[in-house]
């Protein structure tokens, strides 16, 4: 019987009709984990597209882009999901992406003007702390305090890069001085977000660079209200996560359909409690409970996407020399 089925499948496979079109989406690892948004979104999209949606997880946003550059035009991917604002300009420069045909009314603190990439969720970088301490109100206060922080290395991690841009955006030419003053607050610098957050939870530091939405996880998933994000009066740098359609896709319509789906209520309502970020469009039912208890920054900071690569070079050199002493 088994062989019969196998033979039948093979027969049908030869006629293209029998097999639904396959859409390959490259994304970061945590998206496709069993507890990430991947499985729910896959089921929901496949229910309406008559297609086979295949998520392929690999590392983080930077790894995604490196992978695409390695594969070049012959990539199997139709859509890439999970690049962020600091990578958008570099990604565009590759010429591998095609403009998206998606319409949406975004609830972002900034206006989204890019026609190639579609934002699906976003967050503010922030220092997360235990409510037992009284948090500083800005970087200067932090630098003057005895508080210890863990941050991520901007050379290996996207939040680390975010912090770099944050300080640069807020302080411009004064950024090196801020970093020098922060040096004695920094317990250590880690390879990625997970290590830093792990160290923080183990009590190695008073604060860790993460997102304003991080306390929502502890609140909702762990019923733990002891964590909070410190709000800085310089404003908070944003990370917007985006999806893009590859120019070499063999399923351009399906790709557009998927990206449109990502900003639909079905996908957007899943993201807050699986990706622990703000959805790009507030779901009809509103944000989940824990999210309403989060503090919101007064001011959103974001460098223009095109300015990021050059500023990154400069800020990285400043960061290295300030902290290497």
């Amino acid at each position, binding site marked *: 019987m088994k062989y019969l089925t196998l033979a039948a499948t093979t027969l049908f496979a030869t006629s293209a009709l029998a097999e639904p079109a396959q859409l390959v989406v490259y994304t970061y*690892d*945590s998206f*496709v*984990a*069993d*507890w*990430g948004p991947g499985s729910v979104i896959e089921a929901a999209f496949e229910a309406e597209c008559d297609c086979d949606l*295949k*998520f*392929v*997880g*690999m*590392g983080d946003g*930077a*790894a995604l*882009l*490196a*992978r695409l*550059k*390695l*594969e070049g035009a*012959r990539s*199997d991917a139709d859509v890439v999901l999970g690049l962020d604002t600091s990578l958008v300009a*570099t990604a565009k420069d590759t010429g591998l992406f095609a403009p998206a045909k998606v319409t949406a009314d975004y609830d972002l603190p900034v206006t989204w003007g890019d026609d190639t990439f579609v934002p699906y969720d976003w967050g503010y970088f922030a220092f997360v702390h235990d409510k037992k301490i009284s948090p500083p109100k800005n970087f200067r206060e932090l630098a003057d305090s005895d508080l*210890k922080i863990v941050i991520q*290395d901007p*050379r*290996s991690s996207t939040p680390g*890069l975010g912090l770099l841009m944050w300080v640069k955006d807020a302080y411009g030419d004064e950024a090196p001085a801020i970093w020098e003053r922060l*040096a004695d607050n*920094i*317990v*250590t*610098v*880690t*390879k990625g*977000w*997970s*290590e830093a*957050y*792990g*160290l923080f*939870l*183990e*009590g*190695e*530091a008073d604060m860790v660079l993460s997102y304003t939405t*991080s306390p929502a*996880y*502890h609140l909702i*998933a762990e019923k733990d209200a002891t964590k909070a994000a410190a709000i800085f009066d310089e404003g908070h740098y944003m990370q917007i996560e985006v999806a893009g359609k590859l120019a070499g896709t063999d399923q351009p319509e399906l790709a557009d359909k998927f990206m449109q789906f990502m900003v639909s209520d079905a996908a957007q309502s899943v993201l807050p409690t699986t990706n*622990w970020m703000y959805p790009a469009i507030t779901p009809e039912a509103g944000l989940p409970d824990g999210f309403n208890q989060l503090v919101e920054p007064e001011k959103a900071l974001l460098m223009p996407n095109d300015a990021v690569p050059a500023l990154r070079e400069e800020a990285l050199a400043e*960061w*290295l020399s300030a*902290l*290497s*002493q």
Partner: protein
Amino acid sequence: MAFSTVSISSKLGIGAAILVVALILAALLAVLWRAEFNSGLGPADWSAIRFTALQATMSAVLSTLLAIPVARALARRRFRGRGLLVTLLGAPFILPVIVAVLGLLAVFGRAGWLNAGLAQVGLAPVSIYGLHGVVLAHVFFNLPLATRLLLQAWQTIPAERFRLAAQMNLTPHAVFRSIEVPLLRQILPGTAALIFVICLTSFAVALTLGGGPSATTVELAIYQAFRFDFDLSRAAQLSLVQLGIAGGTAALALWIIPTVSIGGGFDRSLHRWDAQGGLQRVLDILAIGLTTVFLSLPIAAVVIRGVAGLAETPAAVWHSAGVSIIVALISIVVLLSIALPMAGWIVTRPRGGSEAVGLLGLAASPLTIGTGWFILINPVADPFALALPVTALINAFMALPFVLRIIVPPMRDTVQIYGRLTQTLGLGGWPLWRWMILPRLRPQIGFAAGLTGALSMGDLGVIALFASPDTVTLPLQMYRLMGAYRMDAAAGAALILLALSLGIFWIFDKGGRWHAQA
């Protein structure tokens, strides 16, 4: 001993060595081929190279020196729990980096047990972050490995030698000079070189415990070049520098190893009559006691955290555990089929320098090898379809230097002792392996296989590039849990990983020693 005493065919071994070199060179060339040459290495790169060499040298020297009293004590003492301790020596080495770092921090960190204890007695806290922290962590990882390598060598000293020493009532100092120093001269350089190369490619440990960008290693620079800058030319240049330092050091260390044999014995179980004196006993108890405390406290921290998180560990973790076990087993098979012929070839050579070939894989940066192979494979085949063989092959490459270090010295001895006998018997080819080498080296092969299996379990796989959706390994799953804030579940997964790795290690290591004491 000027006899030429071997009839091991070197063809297979040379073939295996060529395969290793070719696959690694191919990876490097592939990366260079795709690279556009931008610029040479900058001052930041050179300072990374200096820091890397410094910390690797310190870690290697310290790990190796500290291992001497520990291995010596373990070799001449019999006590309850000794076997368990020897198995546990494998644990730090096979822990995924982040797990081990969290374990170390639970003990030595700002909020760790050590500082809590210091605060109790009113002393100022100590900080683990800095060069000393990096070295401490590397000693934690590598002291056990060095100890096992030395202990293994110590146990190859025939009982007859110690009988002789007991007969002549040699003082511990004289035993050390006459029996143990010649042995150490043979074992220490290779062990130190191996640890040097391991620490050379350290990245997350060095950065996290180094406390900042001044603790940048070459491997981090390579990672940055690949991931953020996509500067393949810089990545390849850095890999070459790393390869050059590692290869040069290793070749030098292996070359100065004298090729004298320790001599044969009749496999009588080792009983020691020396070192019964009070001072020696105290020193040994100290060496074993301190090491046990130093190694077991961070592991205990991992276990305590893990037990608490075990209940929250999702089912996917168990599936990944299955994948990891399969990867480990395949890696062992691949490794042995490369390592054994290579070892056979190396022992036929007058000097040990050729063993440096085995270090290439470890030294060339897994990231570079993985990327290079990806560039080569991607145009002709689906990288995901090759995930399993590629992962197994890379794991085998990473384990190769350890395994050669474990197998080559005793194989050299075996060949020197029984070479003439095998030649008069006309023993060659497969029968030579079947009836002499494999049974003589069974304990070492078991240890090597166990180590490879455990290493493969703890390995993160070939850096995302080849990790297909269906072959998510346990360490990767653990990182995913951490990435989703689920630190408790991740701690549970880490405990499972630790248990499985140690289990695989124990089964093979034990299997190798089963009935070995005829």
